[in-house]
């Protein structure tokens, strides 16, 4: 065609387009754009590893440098997904190893990773740079040793929150002496000691090291040595922050910390002893991120620290901070964007700290940039939620967990429908919402009506009837992920909104009222959904069709049913016969 751009020009233009959504849009313009785009896409994100087969990915995108995959549904974090459900990365690694010799980055979340896969990664990709294993499991330090030994260009090794079988700390010593390219290391989830001398030597010879998150076994008295070898650090996760430090050890630590002038992010602080906290005071004014969610210290100590952090943008902290500490936060940290308050004693019915809805209200008043909240507390009121909503219409992520299920407004004893209704009404850009407390179908009506930008919704112990689910599925235009537990939602709403499910990534429902018969029907009618029934009571045929299933996981896919399921998972499909593993 005389009037089309040369490919090279288009390719050059496309190289400025990074976001997946934009890339996908580009590829839909016409066949030649599709072709050009697929050859120059370098990064692929698969939000559900079962939505597409690895073969299909490599067939479409022949030259990818970065792959990100997610496996288990989010509720797996809370033990709702039984062991063995799936999320195996092995078939992906095998395929990627064959197709992308120049692959540089692999990021996995909630997947089962084996040592064999790690060894294959270590062997297959000569220019491998980034390995992020977030909330993964199934591998041991032997696999890490293979990566350390073979990946000469490795920049980033991040094991955040993964469950690693700890054979020993010797794996770290497998980084050869010639290896100097480490930029980011996160081993905070590991249980066993790594060799401190190997760690020190590693840190010494890697001048580009910017992020170092140690594990709990690194004692405080070794920290100074490490920091002196890496004054360029921007992010530090300490090891255990307690010891019996002699005064010169302590001043050594103070000096070493002060020498790290680029430090912007601190975390770790296990078993923190308040007496040693002042060592970090000189850094406070520059800190933008502070994770104190393991620091079991009282409000006054926390407040002293936080009040000096005038540049703070992100704070993760235990509820020991109490309302008073949050008031100080509101007064001192005007740049705060994200706040997470975790429960120190989540399984005590009684509260142990003076943290109430008031703390969150204070922060919502004082911190005008606050947009992301995760807050565990024991009481809430509609009035407080309304205040928060009015204060912070710029809120984009709001996750509230009132610890007692079905807890009403503690002042009026009403459900919290209007409070959450205010949140969705005022916060027009809300992307993520987690509900808790006593809630009727009404809250879902509000959500369906107002939450037009909502992408992810988490619901527990809420609602009265199918109408609740129907409101959400029919009203939330941007919904991608919906996860529900212990709600009286059943067949009607699900079947009436079957088509909606193809516009979403996934739906999880556990301890609800969806019958086996409805699951079968859905599976029959919707070939591009995998409708997985998860039931540990045995084959669903052994119970009446009207019997609700334990758990249900529905996701859209172009890969068809999977074949790696354990014996308590069944995919409902077109044959209306069960497809056992």
């Amino acid at each position, binding site marked *: 065609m005389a009037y089309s751009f040369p490919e090279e020009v288009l390719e050059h233009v496309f190289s400025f387009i990074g976001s997946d959504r934009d890339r996908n849009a580009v590829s839909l313009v016409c066949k030649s754009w599709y072709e050009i785009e697929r050859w120059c896409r370098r990064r692929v994100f698969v939000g559900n590893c079962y939505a597409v087969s690895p073969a299909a990915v490599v067939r479409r995108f022949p030259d990818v440098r970065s792959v990100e995959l997610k496996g288990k549904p989010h*509720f797996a*974090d*809370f*033990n709702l997904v039984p*062991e063995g459900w799936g999320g195996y990365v092995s078939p992906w690694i095998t395929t990627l190893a064959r197709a992308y010799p120049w692959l540089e980055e692999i990021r996995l979340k909630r997947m089962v990773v084996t040592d064999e896969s790690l060894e294959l990664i270590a062997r297959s990709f000569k220019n491998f740079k980034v390995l992020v294993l977030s*909330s993964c499991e199934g591998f041991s330090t032997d696999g890490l040793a293979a990566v350390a030994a073979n990946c000469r260009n490795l920049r980033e090794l991040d094991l955040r*929150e993964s469950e690693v079988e700890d054979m020993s700390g010797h794996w770290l010593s497998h980084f050869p002496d010639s290896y100097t390219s480490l930029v980011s290391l996160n081993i905070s989830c590991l249980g*066993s*000691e790594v060799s401190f001398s190997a760690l020190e030597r590693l840190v010494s010879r890697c001048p580009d090291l910017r992020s170092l998150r140690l594990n*709990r076994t690194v004692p405080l008295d070794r920290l100074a040595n490490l920091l002196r070898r890496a004054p360029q650090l921007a992010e530090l996760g300490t090891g255990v922050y307690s010891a019996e430090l002699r005064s010169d050890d302590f001043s050594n630590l103070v000096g070493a910390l002060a020498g790290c002038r680029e430090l912007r992010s601190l975390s770790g602080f296990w*078993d923190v002893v308040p007496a040693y906290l002042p060592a970090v005071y000189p850094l406070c004014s520059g800190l933008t991120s502070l994770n104190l*969610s*393991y620091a*079991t210290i009282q409000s006054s100590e926390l407040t002293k620290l936080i009040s000096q952090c005038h540049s703070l943008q992100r704070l993760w902290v*235990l509820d020991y901070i109490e309302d008073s500490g949050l008031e100080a936060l509101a007064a001192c940290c005007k740049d705060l964007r994200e706040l997470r308050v*975790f*429960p120190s*004693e*989540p*399984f005590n*019915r009684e509260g142990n700290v003076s943290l109430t809805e008031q703390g969150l209200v204070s922060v919502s008043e004082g911190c005008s940039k606050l947009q992301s909240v995760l807050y565990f507390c024991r009481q809430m009121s509609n009035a407080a939620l309304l205040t928060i909503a009015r204060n912070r219409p710029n809120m984009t992520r709001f996750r509230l*967990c009132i610890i*007692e*299920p*079905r807890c009403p407004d503690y002042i009026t*004893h*009403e*459900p919290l*429908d209007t409070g959450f209704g205010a949140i969705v009404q005022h916060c027009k850009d809300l992307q993520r919402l987690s509900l808790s407390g*006593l*809630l*009727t*179908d*009404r809250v879902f009506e509000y959500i369906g009506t107002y939450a037009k930008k909502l992408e992810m919704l*988490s619901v*527990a*112990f809420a609602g*009265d009837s*199918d*109408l609740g689910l129907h409101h959400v599925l*029919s009203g939330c235009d941007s919904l991608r992920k919906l996860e529900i*537990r*212990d*709600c*009286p939602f*059943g*067949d*009607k709403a699900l*079947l*009436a*909104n*079957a*088509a909606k499910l193809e516009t979403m990534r996934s739906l999880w429902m556990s*301890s*609800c*009222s969806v019958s086996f018969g409805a699951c079968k*029907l*859905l599976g029959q009618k919707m070939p591009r959904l995998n409708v997985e029934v998860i039931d*540990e009571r045995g084959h669903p045929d052994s119970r009446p069709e009207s019997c609700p299933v*334990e758990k249900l996981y529905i996701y859209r896919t172009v890969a068809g049913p999977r074949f790696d399921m354990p014996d308590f998972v069944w995919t409902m499909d077109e044959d209306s016969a069960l497809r056992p593993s």
Partner: protein
Amino acid sequence: MGLEKAKESPEVDANPGSSLEEITELRLGLPGENRGKSGTKRGFSKTVDLDASAVGRDDEANNSPVGGARVKDEVSGAAKPPAAKTQAVGWPPVKAFRKSVMKSCKYVKVAVDGAPYLRKVDLEAYDSYQQLLAALEKLFSCFSICNYASERKIVDPANGAEFLPTYEDKDGDWMLVGDVPWKMFVESCKRLRFMKSSEATGLGPTTQSACTSSS
């Protein structure tokens, strides 16, 4: 057939026989009508009975016998002993690794007679003697634990030598592992030693069989 229309009118029920009216019948009254109280019927006291010793979920929401469903080991992260309060699984939604925040780390040295070096384990990471010994079996590949629950024997498969699990308690006394409830053991144990039974004088098979089962 209903589903082809589903794109335009998602209310169409895939179930033949039901209609749009059915769904709108369920609709709440006009906005402003007070419905608030009806929700409180399902009071939380029924759902989460925190005084009951039975571990399980109350499925008032659906009428199926799901209460009998197997509850995973980490019931909301609470320790396995039934003395823990009844909790819904996975509630409150706190990730597993966070639950260990409140636990103090209890690392103790573990020595095995004849092994070239000692190891350390975090006793707080386990809920029972069985779990601890299984983990130690992995750490020290030189022995295997034969049916600890019944036989309570720890042997080196290479030469059949038997080991006795002992520990030093707060008072400095060397005790045989397994006599006291697990929690008490964690509290008082300072270090562990697997003693070759040939060296153990005054402790014989009779003492082993007198061990209480893991609590």
